[in-house]
Every structure is written in C-alpha cells, then in structure tokens.
C-alpha cells in the first residue's frame, strides 16, 4: 500500500490502542487486524474449495468455529461465509489479496473498519462475560466463535484461549458504547 498522508485514528478515537486493566483481566483495543468477508459463490463450489485449500493451507472451519494458519484466521460467520483476519500491517489491502486467491469463486468484501475489536485477556474473563453474553462460554473451546448480542450490539465473539482470552468485535460506530459496556461489566464483576 502506498504511503498516503491521512492519519488513522482508533475506533475509540485515539492515536494508540487503549488498554484497561482490572484484577484478573485486561481489555485492549484491537487495531492491528485486517478483516474481510469471504463468501462462497453457489456456482463454483469446487473452485472455491480448491482455492481455499491452496490459499490458506487449512480447511475453512465449520459453524461456530474459527481456524488459523500462517497469517490468516478464518471465522465462520454464516452459511458459506467466513470472516478472514490477517495482520493489518501487511494486509491492509486484504480484499484484493483474497480476490487474487479466489477469483470469481467467492464474493469478498473489505470489513476491516466495519468492526471494532477488543481483546479480553485474563483468568477472570468468564466472570465478566457472564454479565455480558448469553452464550455458554464455559463450553466454548479454544477456536470457538459465534456471532451474538452484547448489550444490544451485534458482535462476533472469538475464543482464542478457552477461559482466558476472547476477542469481541462490534460495529465500529458503536465502539465507544461497546467499550463502555465491557469496562462497566469488568468493574462490576471484578
């Protein structure tokens, strides 16, 4: 990507990711991830399968799961649809990168700035989620992922390490409200 002269801001409006610490938990603004949606086209299922294998080097995960390999993590978000995570620094242009791998066997849409991610890490993570999410996170294994609702906001929740590390993606425009909800819950529970 060319060097341009526009300065980015984080989803919370800052210059650098924000970090909030609580006993047993830290909440960190996630700003280093590029995202795109990848949807298989109905007309070319075989080409899509092949492309996915070649491009990622791993099988795309099934419902409520994510899978990782190399630069990429694929999160199942719906039937025949995945969100692809990759390092922002090298994949800011993630949509054309994927397009090159999938051609017209997939529909690909840049989602990087559609979402605001927060990482919740620490041994008390589940105590906080229990007042945020109706998902049974106690049973969600490492790699589990689900779209759900947190404090009226549609979110994508990814379990990086069961019981310890979760990522919550919410709509970028409501990042401040999502952050407020996470921090309020952490104060309340911890």
């Amino acid at each position, binding site marked *: *990507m*060319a*060097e*341009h*002269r*526009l*300065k*980015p*801001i*984080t*989803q919370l*409006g800052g210059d650098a990711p924000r970090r909030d610490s609580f006993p047993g938990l830290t909440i960190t603004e996630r700003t280093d991830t590029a995202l795109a*949606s990848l*949807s298989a*086209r*109905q*007309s070319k299922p075989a080409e899509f399968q092949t492309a996915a294998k070649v491009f990622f080097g791993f099988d795309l995960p099934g419902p409520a799961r994510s899978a990782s390999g190399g630069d990429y993590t694929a999160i199942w978000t719906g039937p025949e*649809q995945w969100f692809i995570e990759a390092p922002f620094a090298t994949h800011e*242009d993630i949509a054309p990168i994927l397009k090159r791998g999938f051609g*017209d066997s997939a*529909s*690909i*849409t*840049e*989602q*990087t*700035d*559609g*979402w605001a991610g927060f990482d919740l890490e620490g041994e008390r993570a589940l105590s906080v989620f*229990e*007042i945020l*999410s*109706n*998902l*049974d996170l*106690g*049973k969600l294994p490492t790699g589990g992922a689900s779209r759900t609702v947190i*404090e*009226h*906001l549609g979110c994508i929740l990814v379990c990086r390490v069961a019981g310890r590390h979760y990522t919550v993606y919410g*709509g*970028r*425009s*409501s*990042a*401040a*409200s*999502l952050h*407020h*909800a996470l921090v*309020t*819950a952490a*104060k*309340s*529970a911890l």
Partner: protein
Amino acid sequence: MSQKNRLSGGQLNRSKPLNFTFDGASYQGYEGDTLASALLANGVRLMGRSFKYHRPRGPISSGSEEPNAIVELRGGARQEPNTRATIAELFEGLSAKSQNHVGSLKFDFLAINDRLSSFFAAGFYYKTFMWPKAFWEKLYEPMIRRAAGLGSLSMQDDPDHYDKGFLHCDLLVIGAGPSGLAAALTAARSGARVILADEDFTPGGRLNAETFTLGDASGADWAKAAIAELASLPNVRILTRTVVIGAFDHGIYGALERVSDHIATPASGKPRQILWRIYSQRAVLAAGATERPIAFKNNDRPGVMLAGAMRAYANRWAATPGQMVAVFTNNDDGLRTASDLLAKGVRVAAVIDSRSDGPAFQGAEHLRGAVVTDALGRLGLSSIKVKLASGETRQIAAEALGVSGGWNPNVHLTCHQRGLPVWNAELAAFVPGTLPVGMVVAGAANGQLSTSGALASGAAAAAQALEGIGITAKSVDLPQAEDAPVRVTPLWYVPHKGRAWLDQQNDVTVKDVKLAHQEGFRSVEHLKRYTTMGMATDQGKTSNISGLAVMAEMTGKSIPETGTTIYRPPYTPVPIAAFAGRSAGADFRPKRLTPSHKWASEQGAVFVEVGMWLRAQWLPRAGETTWRQSVDREVLATRGSVGICDVTTLGKIDVQGPDAAEFLNRIYCNPFAKLPVGKVRYGLMLREDGMAMDDGTTARLAEDHFVTTTTTANAVGVYRHMEFARQCLWPDLDVQIISTTEAWAQFSVAGPNARALLEKIVDPEHDISNEAFPYMGCGEITVCGGLRARLFRISFSGELAYEIAVPTRYGDGLVRAMMEAGRAFNALVYGTEALGVMRIEKGHAAGNELNGTTSALNLGMGGMVNKKKDSIGSTLSEREGMNRADAYNLVGFQPVDASKPLLGGMHFINQGAPADAKNDQGYMTSVAFSPSLGHSIGLGYLKNGAARKGETLRAVNPLAGEEVMVKVVSAHFVDPEGERLRG
C-alpha cells in the same frame, strides 16, 4: 431500648451488634437478624397499617410471603417502599419508616376507615360515586387516590447500578432447604453442572428454623456442611439471596440476586442486584411450603402470627413477639411451636387445637376441640377469646398467638406456564399438577412435608431430572430425620359475626367473600377481582387458598371444583430497575458515532439523535445566536461554494455474485439489470404490499459487484428483507450480500466548487472532470497519495456533488484534509439540518415522506414501477384503492405571504371550505426555511396534487389556532431542471 424479647441461642452473630432506627427510634440487633426479628426482639410488634382500613399490623410471617410488616427502607434517593421487614437483612445504620398512615403509626387518622368499614364492603365503589357526574374526577377519585397506595417513591432517580447476567447449567435447584440440598448434592456428586438458588441469606430453609436433627447434627449444621461441600465443587454455583422469579419457555428461569441489599450502599461500581437469566436443561423446584392462617374475628392484631413463623423467630433469630404466647392450630405442626417456645423459656398460656382427636400436648394447657373467636388489643395483642369444646368462652391473656391452618406447597413456579395445581385432600392443599417441561418438584413444594420425605424426594427428583439428560445419578446417603405425618383437619375460618381477615394487606374478610358470592362473583377470578383478594404485594400467598375455601363452602362445591388462581411471575416482586439492568438512563441504548464525530465535537457541533446515531445537526460559529443562523449559513455556503457532510450513516450493502444484477432487479421496482459498470442509479424499493419501503442509490462497481445504499433509518430492515428474498424467495440466485455501512467513512462534497476541492484530494491519476466522471458516475480511486477510496457522483442537495468514501479509520483524517484543501473555497461542514433544507429545496422524499403508507404513485414515481418484470410490490400496487383519482401526490407548497412560516403536520383545506375532517385535503410532511429563496417551503401530500399546481389552499394548524394560505407548486424549488448537478 433493650432487646426485651431476645431469647437465648439462635443463629445470630452476637459479637456483632448492629444499630438501626425504625420510625426515628433507635434500636439494636445482631448480624443475622432481619428487620422484623430485630424489632420483635426489641418488643416492637406494630410495624405497619393495612391498605384499606388502616388497621394496625405486625408481621405474620418470617419470609417473603409477608403481607403486613412492610416498610420504607433506607432514605433519600435509595428509599425503597413496601419492603418486607421479614426478609430485610439488618445492617449497621439501617433506617426504616412505617408507611401508609396519616399522623403516626400509632395514631393514624385514616383509621377512621376502619370505623366506617361497613360502608366500604367489597365492590362498594362500583355502586356509588356516580353522581353528580363531574364529581368522580374532581372529588371522589382524588380523595381515593390520596388515600390509596402504600409506600412512597423518593421521586429521585435510582442511584444504584444493576446488572443482568446469563448462567447455564444441567440442573437448576430452586430452594436450599432439605429437599433442595439433597437434590443439589445428588446432582453435584454425579458431575452435573448445578446451580443452587435460594432466596434466603442463609441457605437451609426450614432446617434453620426447626429444632429437628439430621443424623447427629442439628438441621442448621447439616445444611451448613452440605453447603460447604457444594461450594467446594467446581461444577456447582451457589446463589444465595437469590429468588427464582419465573419459569419461562424452554428451561429459562429468571432469578434476582440481591448482591448489596444487606449493606448500606453498594460498593463503588458494584451492582445492587443482578437479574440472572438461567438456561437450564432441567430444574428441581424445591421451594418449600407456606403456612396458612385460620381466619377469626380480629385475627389481624399485631402479635397474631403464623405458628411456624413464631417458631422460626424463636429458633433461628432468638426473638419472640411476647413473653406469654398461645398457639391455635388445626394440625400437628402447630404443636411444635408450643414445644419449641417452651424450650426457649417462653410461657405458653394455652394451646388451642380445633381438633378433638389430635395428639395430646404436654407442657401447656391444651384446649382440644376449641377455637379462637376474637383477638383483643388494638395496637398489639393482649388477650384472645376462646370458645371451648363445651361451648363456653374463655378469655386468655397472651401477647402473641401462633396460628397454624396447615401448609400450602409453593406451587407457584409450576403454574408459570399455565399448569394448574391439583387438590390433595390429605394435605388439604393444592400440589403441583402439570409442570413446565424439564421441571421436577421435590420436598414440601410437592407435598412431602416431613424432613425425611423432603430429603428423599429431593434426591429422587435430582436423579429423575438427570436421567432425562443422560446423566446417571450417584446415590447419596441421606441422614436420619423426623418423618412425622401431617395430620390436618381443615379449618379455614371460625364463624362469627365480626370481621375475620383473609387477605390482611388488602383488608379482605370472610364477609367480603360471602358478599361476592351473594352478588354472583363466584368464579375464582371474579372473586379475586371483585374483592381484590390476593392482589396485594404478597399476591395472596397466605390468603388465596383460604378465600377459595370460603367460596367453596358458599357454593356448596369442593375446593378443586371451585377453582384455583393462576400464579404468574414474578414469584416475589422485583425492582423495575433490576429488569432494566445497565440499560437505564443515558445507557438505555448504545450510541453510534460517525467517523467525523471527534472532529465535529472539536468544532462545537450540536448533535442530534438519528436512530441510534448521533449526527452533527449544525455547527455553530461565534456570534450565531439561533440555530437558523447557522443552518442558513451552511446552506448558502454550500450552494455558493462547497460544503461537506458526513453521510456515513446511510446503509451500505455490498451485493456481489453472477446474479447480483438480477437480484437487484427484483428488489427494486425500477430496472437494474442493464446498469453499466461505473454508473449509479436511484432505486425505489417497495414492500410486497406496494408501499414504498426505502430508497437509495446503487453503484455498479463491476459486472458482479454492486454497492447499494439505504436510508439511515431502514438500513437494518432492508438488509433483513434482502436476506429474506435471497434465502427464502430465490434460494438459487447466486448472490451474496453483506453490510459494509461502517467500513467506509463517506462524505458528501457538494456545491459549485466541489470538484475543485476534490481535485486537491483525489490523486491526479484519477480524472474527475465532468467528461471523465459525469453525473451518476462512480469508481474506485485513491486519495491523498495512495489511500484506496470510492467516489460516487450523486447529489442529494441538487448541487454539483460527490460522495467520497475511505476506510473508516481515515475518515477523521479525510475531513481534516478536505477542510484544509477547501480553505480557498471557504468550505465548511454542514449538518443534518442544512442537509434537510437542501433536500426539501430539491424536492427529495425522505423519512417524513416514506412513512410506510405511501406508494410509488403517491411519491410521484408511479411510472418507475416497471411492469415488464417481477419485482417485490409491483403486483399489489395495482389494487384499485392505491390508484384512485384522488390519491395523494407529493407536491411543493409555498406561503402566499412570503413572511409566513410553514409547519410540518399542517393539514390542507380548500379555500372557502370549513376546516373539518370532511374537507381534509392532505398534510404537510416536511418544511424548511429556504435561505436560497428567502421564504418557507414545504413538501406535502395533497389529494390529486399533481393536477393542482397553482392552486391556493389553506394550510391549517388548529392545534395552535393558526393558518397560512399556501400555493401548490412543484416540489423542485431549486434548479428544477437539474442543471447544477450535471455541471
């Protein structure tokens, strides 16, 4: 005052005395007390006044079923009306006030109602207060309202924080008495995920109130050990101070945890209460039973209480309502109260047993075959009158009377899905009938009233529940415990001329039930509604069955034939704030902020709520004193040079795939199949009923790639609708859609200098000249030295205009860069008001016009509905009622006198016709002051409006007594030929 009625023993922490006040007087109690137990220990029996007759009242129970001892707890903004003293945990500094009296608790002027009670019989108000007609609202009702109600709200915003949470388990055990503990132990040892919820602050249920032993241990100690074991297991969650309030569909239970109610104020950031939504595979209801009173004359005197409660106060709380007590019972359990109080050193004046054939009682005078006929002592019991088996009446001095009419299983949660309980003649009580799916009932709640029976049924219930979800229960060794039979001879009330209370809080007496019967209100629901029985804060927990029994006697039917009331959630009342949780006040709903929010805040923008979004409404500058000054300036500057507006809030849906064009062709009423790549087209989307659903522009970025925009308000609904079409109507169309609304920061750049400004932003390799990038063109470009961006040549304002989009994180940078680049043109950012003014000047429909009842024809776009293809809504838009000659058409209006303002919501009346509904010609949808034209303008729907341009009409606003003469004009006020936007 000393704790003159404090006994020895009990489960109190005597090393921790607590000071508290009631009605301003100071008292002391101990950790482990409730407000009621501490007051009783201090010799206070009078704690409240009844609802209707303002009768003096004391506690009749020691639990959440309490109808009488309800107080205003705490003060200031934290004042809690109607709090049951019987479950309010004592804490240092607690202050409580009695409620519902005029004057003091002891001398309540409204006690006059009691003297006049014969005029206030059940339903009296339906028969009077009707004359003269105006008096109801002016005199009678205000009088009634002033007298009614119980406690008071502080009228201040609740300062506390409430949480909502979600828990999952294999087995939810409701109640931690003997059966609940046995169930929880069974399930926990079997490896199931268990949640054990109990409303009390000390789990154990009746085990804490009784002197029975379980094996070698006291009941309380056994409970403590069981809880300790459960707490040590990782698969068990114990929730104390948590009442399960409702059984909802599919194993979902609501539960309220009182996290901080036992301390003066919640710790900083901590919740007062949490509303848990518990997802259970199975549930064991072990909610115990509630004792019921026997009604007799003046049975509501302070000091008359349930026998089991009297015993609980003595055993658990080491408190007695008096040093000389008596017991009145129709069953064996009542006798226990007498022996337990004797064991505590309280004198028992007599045991009045309505049965002649019950077991003999030693230790106090046992009057068998006798009944209590009256209670004396206005502010507190002093003596009772007893009718002996011989027929003689005897007066017996007593400060308190324990009454037991038998026990009613707590079947409430079994009824929450409209299951009906069934009558059990042996217990003379209703027991659970049809159960919610997944629920098993155990212990006293299921009619197993002995400790031994409760333990066994708890273990069995857990095993049965687990079997249903494929878990084999391990058997649990249960301790030896009492297994006494119930032996009850029903006695609901003692017949007498005086008033005998059933529902104490609402002052419903046996006479009222009889009157209801006399007047034909004989079904249970009629009885309840006519007399208000069971509608008080205790929901009739101690009165409903007795009332039913009296009605059964009247009708000559059995109790089950007479009916049962439907118990509904919540089991006990729940603060409204707890149901709201964190979604209160300004946190009611999340906010959505635009990419330029930070920049606009720095500029001092005034923001407005648009759905969930906050958008800049206008950006005032120094010296501007009214919003109109700012908005007029923004409009004129834009039309005069260039203005920028954040339009990110418009929905953007990415539509891709080989069938994307065909899909859009069916979603929109106008054609899309042949839209060239690099072009944008306006689309009108109809609902299937032919009414306009939404509108917006769609850009074709590639053969198989479109970006569709929706209005801000409809973004979510349109996406849902498109998914419906894609998945349900045409499942084999190869099209994929996804929202990209927030991924792109999008700005409108409008005005004669728009292109000049953008040429400084858009990288030079992209030619945006009019020839290379004409009106309705679009393309992917780069800006500011290589950042990927999208450019659309579309115009809402009617000016030469573009919309430019960059990834959202750069939106803030882009607006700053554009302001910098626009300095030479005096570029400014305009808000939603100026946006609105310009769209009205241009005659574009927006939310006010797309109100869900307007068709394409109404909007003046009837011709857009293409009849050569199938599209949603096209067929039903052909219906005759939607194509009448006098259908509404969207037209423009301007005041005949240019100085007159117009208002949205004015109605149109023909000149010379009276302003009434018959002559209503339509209404004004949107208005603005047009700074371009120097007068107000409006859009509106007018019957047959398209054919009426040039007419003069009255625009009336009877709400304000105003009217303005308006001229019907074209809705395109500015640049009607559209020359500017093509320039």
